[in-house]
């Protein structure tokens, strides 16, 4: 038995292989394409949440296409896969666009979003959508499910990682802090929470509705490893994801500073675009702004 095996591990040993440096130019092209998909699906459904979807596109593009998420579209239930829980489930259009690009399901299904009989529900649902790992939508719940998945790896002695998408608005839910407390207590180091810090929630700017103060400092105080990044700088996001993988004995939070509606001029940082679909004209303008 080697020394590392003999040492009492506080958590399961997580994957520590550096990811190959992605082609960031290619990632940028992918992100643009995904943003177009998001807007097209929301326009087709005439309801849904563009703001956060566009805001987190660069972070999630880096996660899924930058070599971090170990998943198999041909075997969505693969037990060794990395898990992704979108705890702020309302921004699922970007998740669906990513899963379609990875061919978990046909790209043509995207425009069925939110329609009767669609596999793409208004909020993520494991029964309907391949590649979705948790039923989410009610804020505060997904983070705990992610914690359970991460603890499951410990029991099964597997080395998969769990990524959780969350947000500053969601952080107003008390359950988030129950989770933060427990994840630190159990030294769950295969868990990385990606927080969309766009400063906006449905009712307006977060500082006006319920000021979250220094979220990074709060997580740090709970015992987490914390990084702050520009959520639109994919090199920085990639580096933060890499760094998180090397952390031992602590869960990790990456506070992603983003712009709600990023990429569409009239949406950027405008609270109303949290949850309104674009009209015909608005879609046209948005797609022209996001043309290759």
């Amino acid at each position, binding site marked *: 038995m080697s020394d590392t095996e003999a040492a009492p591990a506080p958590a399961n040993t997580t994957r520590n292989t550096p990811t190959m440096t992605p082609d960031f130019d290619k990632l940028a092209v992918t992100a643009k394409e995904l943003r177009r998909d998001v807007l097209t699906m929301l326009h087709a459904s005439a309801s849904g949440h563009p703001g956060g979807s566009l805001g987190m596109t660069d972070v999630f593009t880096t996660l899924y296409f930058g070599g971090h998420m170990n998943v198999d579209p041909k075997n969505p239930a693969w037990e060794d896969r990395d898990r992704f829980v979108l705890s702020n489930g309302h921004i699922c259009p970007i998740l669906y666009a990513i899963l379609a690009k990875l061919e978990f399901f046909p790209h043509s299904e995207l425009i069925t979003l939110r329609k009767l009989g669609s596999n793409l529900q208004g909020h993520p*649902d494991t029964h309907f959508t391949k590649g979705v790992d948790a039923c989410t939508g009610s804020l*505060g*719940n997904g983070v*705990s*499910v992610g*914690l359970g998945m991460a603890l499951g790896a410990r029991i099964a002695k597997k080395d998969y990682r769990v990524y959780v998408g969350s947000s500053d608005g969601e952080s107003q839910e008390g359950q988030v802090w129950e*989770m933060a*407390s*427990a994840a630190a207590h159990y030294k769950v180091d295969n868990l990385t929470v990606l927080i969309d810090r766009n400063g906006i929630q449905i009712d307006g700017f977060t500082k006006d509705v319920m000021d979250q103060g220094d979220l990074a400092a709060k997580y740090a105080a709970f015992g987490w490893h914390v990084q702050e990044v520009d959520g639109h700088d994919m090199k920085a996001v990639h580096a933060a994801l890499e760094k998180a993988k090397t952390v031992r004995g602590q869960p990790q939070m990456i506070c992603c500073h983003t712009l709600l509606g990023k990429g569409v001029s009239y949406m950027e940082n405008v609270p109303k675009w949290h949850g309104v679909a674009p009209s015909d004209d608005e879609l046209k303008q948005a797609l022209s702004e996001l043309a290759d």
Partner: protein
Amino acid sequence: MTGQVATRESYGKALLALGESRNDVVVLDADLSGSTKTKAFSQQYPERFFNMGVAEANMIGTASGLASTGLTVFASSFAMFAVGKAFEQVRQEIALPIANVKICASHAGLTTGEDGASHQVLEDLAIMRVLPNMRVIVPADGRETEAAIAAVAASEGPAYVRLSRMKTPVFLPDDYEFEFGKIPVLRDGSDITLAACGVCVHPALEAAEMLATEGIQARVLNVACIKPLDEATLIAASRDTGAIVTVEEHQRRGGMGSAVAEVIAEQAPCHVRRLGMDDRFGESGDGAELLAHFGLDAPSIAQAARETLALKQKGR
């Protein structure tokens, strides 16, 4: 009869047996492991036990995540908190995804006793039985508890098992087997039916004895499995006896009695009287005294049966 035991104690014993026979069984508690009796499991299998602290919402979500990885998860707290504080998490993360999580909650009902109204949950059956995919079980004694825990562990999917704090008689036979969707007939009779669950089953049997001395033959049903509900046995009881008294330490509205009344009203109408708490909270006291005080002990059940039988005989 082989002594007295609280169903929560039998739960603790059943968990230990499961821990031994199955390494996929994981247990969570919310700082009440000494009371819910998960502590013995935690000491025997520490790597498969997580004390989640005083944080029930996160406990339920975590249970769901663990279950999604293929584990069989038991989550315990007081019933008031597991159901009351974490209802939304139970709905969204256990019932909706059909997670393999068994919520086994103790200190349910009036017989929680001295802790009083804040801890005597009287609404949990109503809340849990309306959830799709959720099975709802209230074992009548320690023996049935062990059988029910083995049964929920052996079958995939969510279940809510309501457990009691108070020691009660172990009266079911040694070879008793728990079956989902089956209401065992504990005593046959053709004059009236007493349908009870949990700690009220034994008093119902005692009431049947009292009635027998008066020449009234009462059928006694153990409605331990409230969902899925054995409609055939209830319909037969209605047709054979023409009157049903239900007994539970729960609100009259929404609980086991309501579940029975729903079936009877739609499929085999007869006289139904529901005993339980009448739209009010409990109070502190000894468990057995509380049952008597609120009309759920054997003499009260017998009296309700006489009154219901009289209505039936008057044809009203």
